[in-house]
Every structure is written in C-alpha cells, then in structure tokens.
C-alpha cells in the first residue's frame, strides 16, 4: 500500500477564481522522497500545507497508510515538518527545540535525552546541544530543524523549500546530507522546491506542478528524458521546442515509434516518440544534443547565424538564428570548432534525440 495518497485534493480560495490546487491525485511509496517541483504559485506549498494539516482542503482526501486523515487536526497527524525559515523556537536552546515533539508525546525525561542526543548525532551537531538557537548559522539551524522533525519518527517528513535560504555551496552540501539522512531513516518525504537541480538530484519521484495541477509524475530520469508536456520539457533542463505536425508514424518493436514531422519553414524531419501521436505536437531537442558547427559544404543541417554565445568554463552555449527560429546549442569546451558571434553555423541533430511530446496542441 502507498504511504501517502492524495485523492482529488483541491484548494479554492474563493468562488470563481482558479483553484490553487486542482483535483490532485498522487501516490507516494513508503520510503520515497518525492519532490513537488514547480514555479511559484503552482500550488506545491499549498499542497504540502494541506498534507500537514495547516490548511483545510476545499475538497478531496488525504490518506496515510490507507487511513483518511483529511479531518484529523494538525497536532494529531504525527508528521514532521521543516519550514523555509526553520522556525526554531528562539527562546529555547537546541536540546529543548529538538525535545519539544517528544514532550508533546509525553516521553520520559530519560527517553527524551537519549533520543535527542541520537538525533543531534545524526546531523553531527551533538556538541551544540546547550547552545541558544539564535547563535547558530543558517546551515546549523537547518540541521537542527531536521533533527527536530525526525526525532519523533514522523509518519511523513515534509520539507518546505528548506534550502532556499542557504548560499549555493551550502545548498549543495545540505542536499546530499538531507538525502542521506532521509534514506537512512527511510522516512517517506515530500519536498517542495522550485529548483530543478535539487529535485533531480535528490528525488525518487518528481511531481512537476503547474497551475494547481501535476503535469507529470515520475522518476527524475523519466521526467528529464521523456517529458510529457511542453511545460515540463521547459521547466526541467533547457529545451529547444518546435511546434510540428506529425506526418507519418512507423511503429517499432520495443516501444517508441519513429515519426516524420513537418517543421514549418524547415521541412520534414525524423523523430521518435511514444506510439499513437497525431496532429500538432511539440518537438523537443535538448541543447546538448543539438550540434552547432561551422558551415561545411555538403553537411546536412539548418544553416543560420550565431546570435550570441556564453562561455561558462566547462561548457559553451550558443544561440543560432535560422530564419525565424532561435536554436540553443550547448557543448563542452574542447578547443576545436570555435564559433564566434556573427559566424555562420550549421545546426543539426540525430533523429533519436528529437522527441515528440505526447501533449496535444490542438484543443
């Protein structure tokens, strides 16, 4: 049985305006870390808060271990939550903060001390037990908040953009740490973030949300390699998206079909995709699968002009204008094949790297 199930979960703040969360269905396996990923306003935090019980749903249900907890009050849900601001109690020291949940559960003083020590060891901050929380750095506060949430052995661990307030270097370190702790404790976790790198790196599953809906739910590789909609393709990683018309399909053994798609203004190109796609669709080519090279006579591709380039040490990215369309290409720097701004360049890609997205563009 799934650890967490959301059934038709809806939040609508007032009649007549669009729901913040729109009939969400989602299932989370025990022990998984699931990211709720999306731009601000997509409903991910609202969903998290409804699961926590801090907000009432307008409709729908929340099931944990098969039981309906939708009308269970917050303080009886037994969950653990880490807030964006960490929300450590400023008038208590570290030990008292972490012990709070245990006190609510009426644990004996001895038990409390043992569990708190254990929790602090897990986040490697045992030596700060008596420190007032105001004296801690951002990263330390975050780890204490995590310890406080985990020490009560919560049914679910809820993380609301816990890394947003940290600087870039620290964010990366904490990312790995949180994931390790989560895996060790096997806590089923919901993780809200707007940072796709975080989601890709940490999650067992990602729910990409937009406008109150889940556009796609799947493993990171799936969401990245096989996005189902234009939005997901754009949100995760960088993308070249072309509106195309499907002309022919030749089904292949073992899943994907080969397609011939008409790219307006450029002709017909081969592509791949799941079977059964027709009509107007989006064609996705990831920039690092798109090659931009100096024009060599006889080599196939689209000819255009390099409009801009940006060099980031590891890689270089170009935007090449071909007619009305801008193509983004990315490449690891290698020393050969330098292109400068204003140069003429040929853009090309392999058929297997051109993906037809399942999302239909027709009404």
């Amino acid at each position, binding site marked *: 049985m799934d650890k967490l199930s959301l059934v038709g979960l809806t939040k*609508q703040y007032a009649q007549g305006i669009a729901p913040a969360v729109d009939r969400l269905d989602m299932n989370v396996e025990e022990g998984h870390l699931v990211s709720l990923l999306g731009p601000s306003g997509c409903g991910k935090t609202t969903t998290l808060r409804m699961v926590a019980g801090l907000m009432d*749903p*307008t409709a729908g249900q929340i099931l944990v271990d098969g039981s309906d907890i939708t*009308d269970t009050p917050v303080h009886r849900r037994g969950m653990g939550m880490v807030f964006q601001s960490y929300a450590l109690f400023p008038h208590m020291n570290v030990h008292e903060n972490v012990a709070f949940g245990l006190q609510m559960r009426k644990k004996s003083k001895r038990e409390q001390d043992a569990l708190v020590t254990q929790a602090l060891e897990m986040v490697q901050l045992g030596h700060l037990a008596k420190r007032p929380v105001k004296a801690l750095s951002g990263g330390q506060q975050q780890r204490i908040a995590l310890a406080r949430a985990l020490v009560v052995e919560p049914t679910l661990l809820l993380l609301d953009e816990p890394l947003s307030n940290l600087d870039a270097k620290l964010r990366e370190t904490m990312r790995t740490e949180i994931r390790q702790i989560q895996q060790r404790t096997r806590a089923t976790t919901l993780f809200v973030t707007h940072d796709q790198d975080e989601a890709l790196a940490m999650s067992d599953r990602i729910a990409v949300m937009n406008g109150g809906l889940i556009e796609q739910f799947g493993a990171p590789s799936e969401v990245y390699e096989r996005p189902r909609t234009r939005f997901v393709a754009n949100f995760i990683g960088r993308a070249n998206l072309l509106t195309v018309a499907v002309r022919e399909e030749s089904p292949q053994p073992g899943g994907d079909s080969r397609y011939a798609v008409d790219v307006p203004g450029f002709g017909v190109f081969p592509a791949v995709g799941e079977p059964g796609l027709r009509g107007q669709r989006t064609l996705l080519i990831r920039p690092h699968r798109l090659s931009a090279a100096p024009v060599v006579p006889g080599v196939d591709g689209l000819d255009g002009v390099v409009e801009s380039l940006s060099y980031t040490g590891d890689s270089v990215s170009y935007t090449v204008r071909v007619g009305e369309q801008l193509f983004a290409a990315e490449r690891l720097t290698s020393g050969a094949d330098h292109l400068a701004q204003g140069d003429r360049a040929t853009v090309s890609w392999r058929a297997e790297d051109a993906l037809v997205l399942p999302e239909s563009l027709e009404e």
Partner: protein
Amino acid sequence: MTATQTLAEARATGPYLASGEQEKRTKRRNRRIALALVIPGIVGLAVSFLFPLVYMIRMAFNEGSGNGIVVETFTFSTILDPLTDSYYWKVTADTFLMGLVVGVLCIVVSYPIALFLARTQSKWMGLLLAAALAPLLTSAVVRTYGWMVLLGDDGLVNSTLLGIGLIDSPIRMANSMSGVIIGLVEIFMPYAILAMISGFGRISTQLEEAAGSLGANKAKVFFRITLPLSLPGVLTAFLLVFVLSISTFVTPRLLGGGVVQVLATEIYDQATGLLNWPFAAALAIILLVLFGAVISVYQALIKKIGG
C-alpha cells in the same frame, strides 16, 4: 475513520468530496475562539470607558442646578447655557489659545532635540533618548511642582534675575497663565519629541548632502529640504500637544493658583464643587467638540502635505 480503503473506495465515499465543508467548520471554530478571547476586553472597556462616556453625554441633556440636583429630561438648554455665557466663551477661548501657544512653543523647543536624536550616530543616542523620555515616568503633579518652584516669586528664575539686577521686582509667572504655558511646554516636550522622531525617519542625511553638493549653504538646506520634509512629523506633534493642552487639568490648577480658568478646571469645579453635573457634562461636550474639530483639521492638512 481508521479503516483502510482502496483508492477507488476512498474516491467513492469520502466525506469531503463536497466543497468547502471543512473550511467552513474551521472558520466557525476560529470565530468562536476569537470571540472568547475578545469578550473580557470588550466588557472591561465597556465598563471603564464606553458606558461612562455615553452616560456623561446623556447627562448633558439633563437639567441641573448644583448640589447634585438633577432633573431627568432631554433638553439642549444645558448645553446652550455656556454657549450663551460670555464668561464661558472666555474660558473656552482661553483654553483654545493656551493650546495653540503651548503647541507652537513646544514644537519650537522640541524640534532641535528631535532633529538631533533622529540623526545622530553618537553612541550616547540611547542615553539621550532615554533622558528625553524619562520625564514621562513622573507624575504631572511632580513636574508641575518643579515649575512652581522655578517660577514662583521667590523661585529660581526670579531670584536669579533679581540677583543679576535685570529686574527690580519679581515677574509674576506662577499663579498666572504665562507660568502655566511655560510649564505645559516643558511637560509635553517628550510627547512632541517622540512624535517628531517618528516623523523624521524620512529625512536622510544623504538628501542634505546632495543639496549641499548642489551649492546650497547650511541655512538653505535647512529651510528648503529639512524643514519641509519634517513637516508631517511637526504637524503630528503639534496636534498631540494641542490636544493634551486643552484637556490638561493638574498644571493649570496648580500653576494657575486659582487665577487661571480653563475648561478642565471649570469641569472640575462644576462636578465636584458645585455638584452641577449636567453643566459639567455640557462643558465636557464643548471640550470634545473642540477636540474633534482640531483632529479633523489635522487629518485634512496631513492629507494635503502628504504625510
């Protein structure tokens, strides 16, 4: 509900598939809690504030003739009485003028301190601010007493002036309106300073430095930049001091020595001396009207100068 269900079962039978039920229940619960929290406060203020105020206003429509004799009726005559009596016109005018003079003088004296405190970066700022506000810790009686000593015929001011030979005989300050005004100006300074400091937040030294670099000398900077920007704070401070002055009782009573009559002292005499309660209430209403009129003017002015 603790029985486990399949997803399909849950979808079919869930109690909250209907919209908004849970939200409504929570809203109702919260309203009840809020009500419970607020009721003691409302009761306390009703007893201590609202009811006495309403009762007093009602009393002004009764008729009285002193000695606690009150005729329950509804008439405007009691209120009209002081309005048709030249003595009370004088008292009201005196009260109003006193408020104006005290307001203006208080602003003038407090402005330098407020400006200084709002902009100084000295490490003594906290101490100086505390010193400016410390007088608020003492009773008006104590401070008025201090002024009685300072301004009396044998007091510090007169003794000094006589001693230097600037005057031949003591200036009458205590037991006169001038003494009351001087005393009130000082007593209300902390209020004015506080009001102006919060109003001055908007004036940054950068603005003044910019003006200076554009060629304005110190005086110009003050009159063209600092002063106009500080106007909302000054206006608020003036209102505060004016309103406090026209309502104040202790200082006019003590420093006025029975000679100074303002609305507050008249109300006291009528209420506790002559026991003419409707009349005292009528005077109080006049005071309230004066009050309300000034506040309205203030709000109109603040809107104009964009506080």
